[in-house]
């Protein structure tokens, strides 16, 4: 099965339409080890380094992908569309998604999904039938359900931060049949793991998407274990099931309207509500909030989110992090101190 890559700085891209067209959706995450050198020819270095890393990967992978989809994740990367379209050779598609979730926004979203389906059908000569879409949704839901069960084990079993990251990365990049097998293996292995280590402090992780394991390793080294999160490469991806009893594209609109809200959408209240609920559900009182350098949506939200959670008596630290594979000693010191304050 051919790979269809997509660039999405949130969780907005309708993978199921691509699956129904006969492709494996592959979320472009960039390669932090490879850096951003080639992309820096087209994007200034004061833009989001993750976005530059993704473009860097796309430029190197020119022949490997049948096509590239571009989703409106955040406003800044949204405008990278033209840069990608001009410099990449594959068939290129645009999926627009609304900023809000009200009825008008849902109509707009539905039209965007209809257009994307029609564009794929025309470009590849395939028929994306309701039956194929329903089958793709069922497969996605099986994956999300397994991920939900596995993610819940973080609070009780010894599952490291990088292992959790690897589970989510696999789910958005590998062929979906293989993903189901892999998650099945984890379902057999993870429940048998030792209990949550006493030396570690459980936290909720929020903020910019963590797209490489380095940050998860820094947190692990600092003695902080992520047991809840609201990342697109995390709970946002598997939080809810896509409705299976309604017409497939309508179901996708409903699914995206109900997902935990990222900082790229307004108003931010729903994002805060999700964090409060997640903390209450899991009995957590500590949050690590972070934004990748130049990630404006999360940096804009951070002071308000931090203050609102502090008002609830939640211990919270906010950090800016770099796009680098090397251990960030300054971040480690801040995180270790935060853990020592929690002990």
């Amino acid at each position, binding site marked *: 099965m051919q790979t269809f890559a997509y660039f999405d700085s949130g969780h907005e891209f309708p993978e199921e339409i691509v699956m129904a067209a006969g492709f494996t959706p592959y979320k472009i995450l960039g390669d932090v080890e490879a850096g951003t050198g080639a992309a820096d020819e087209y994007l200034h270095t004061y833009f989001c380094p993750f976005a530059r890393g993704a473009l860097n990967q796309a430029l190197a992978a020119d022949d490997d992908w049948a096509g590239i989809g571009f989703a409106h994740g955040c406003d800044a990367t949204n405008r990278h569309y033209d840069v990608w379209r001009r410099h990449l050779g594959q068939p290129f598609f645009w999926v627009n998604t609304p900023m809000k979730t009200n009825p008008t926004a849902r109509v707009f979203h539905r039209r965007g999904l209809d257009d994307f389906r029609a564009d794929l059908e025309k470009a590849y000569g395939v028929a994306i039938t309701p039956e194929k879409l329903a089958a793709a949704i069922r497969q996605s839901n099986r994956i999300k359900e397994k991920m939900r069960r596995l993610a819940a084990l973080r609070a009780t079993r010894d599952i490291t931060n990088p292992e959790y990251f690897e589970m989510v990365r696999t789910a958005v990049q590998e062929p979906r049949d293989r993903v189901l097998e892999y998650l099945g293996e984890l379902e057999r292995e993870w429940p048998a793991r030792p209990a949550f280590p006493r030396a570690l402090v459980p936290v909720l992780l929020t903020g910019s998407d963590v797209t490489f394991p380095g940050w998860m390793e820094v947190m692990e080294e600092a003695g902080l274990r992520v047991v809840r999160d609201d990342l697109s490469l995390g709970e946002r991806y598997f939080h809810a099931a896509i409705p299976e009893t309604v017409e497939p594209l309508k179901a996708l609109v409903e699914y995206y309207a109900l997902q935990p809200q990222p900082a790229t959408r307004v108003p931010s209240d729903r994002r805060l509500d999700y964090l409060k609920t997640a903390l209450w559900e899991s009995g957590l009182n500590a949050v690590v909030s972070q934004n990748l*350098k130049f990630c404006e949506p999360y940096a804009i939200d951070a002071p308000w989110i931090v203050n609102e959670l502090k008002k609830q008596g939640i211990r919270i630290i906010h950090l*800016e992090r*770099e796009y680098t594979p090397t251990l960030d*000693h*300054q971040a480690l*010191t*801040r995180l*270790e*101190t935060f853990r*020592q*304050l929690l002990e």
Partner: protein
Amino acid sequence: MRTIGIDIGSTTTKIAVLENDQLLYTEIVPTGYNVDKAWRELLAATLENLRLRESEIDRLVATGYGRNSVDIADRRITEIMCHAAGIVYSRPGTRSVIDIGGQDSKFIQLDADGNVADFKMNDKCAAGTGRFLEVMARALELNLEDFGRLSLVANRAVKISSMCTVFAESEVISLISRGEERENIIAGIHESIAGRVVSMMGRSGVKAPVAMTGGVARNQGIRKALEEKLKLNITVPETAQVNGAVGAAVLARKI
């Protein structure tokens, strides 16, 4: 009980030796590029000066960015916790600590019992740190002591717009070529650093008494600029530069 604290900073490595509650010894050496060599030689020299053997040290705590290189440490504790413990030792009752070192600046809030209530650190940038001051002093052809002292005789503070170390150096060079008085430029640099530190602190979190530690605490101009912005007196303990090491030695007694 005899304890040692070693604080390996980006610029200097500090050691403090405590015997029961008495501060026996402190020393500061440049860290250099070889962190391991710096602390090992400092420890050996300290033991020699005090005529002690390593076995006569009950506990050793390492702190600072190089703390993980101290393989003989009984524990490694972050500099924030150590600076708090150090100031509680030298200035009990302090509620706010401003620590400006070579590579970063910190604000530590202490509760009434001397525990760390919260902390803030600078962004990942040299602006507002000792390194920034070193670069500015070099541009003005002054040593750090004169650099701090001269600003006190300035008749006004020139506005320094850039806080990026590289761009600020260019700005300072432009000001020199424009004929600005050196003292006024330095006062402007201090004001701009103080503004950045105060903004990091967030005015609502600052409680008196306020103490300042770290190598930059020796700079009287910075202290004055901070006092004016905070409208509070700032005390600088004699052990300001070795405060982290003292705190490490204090915490070593508790583990």
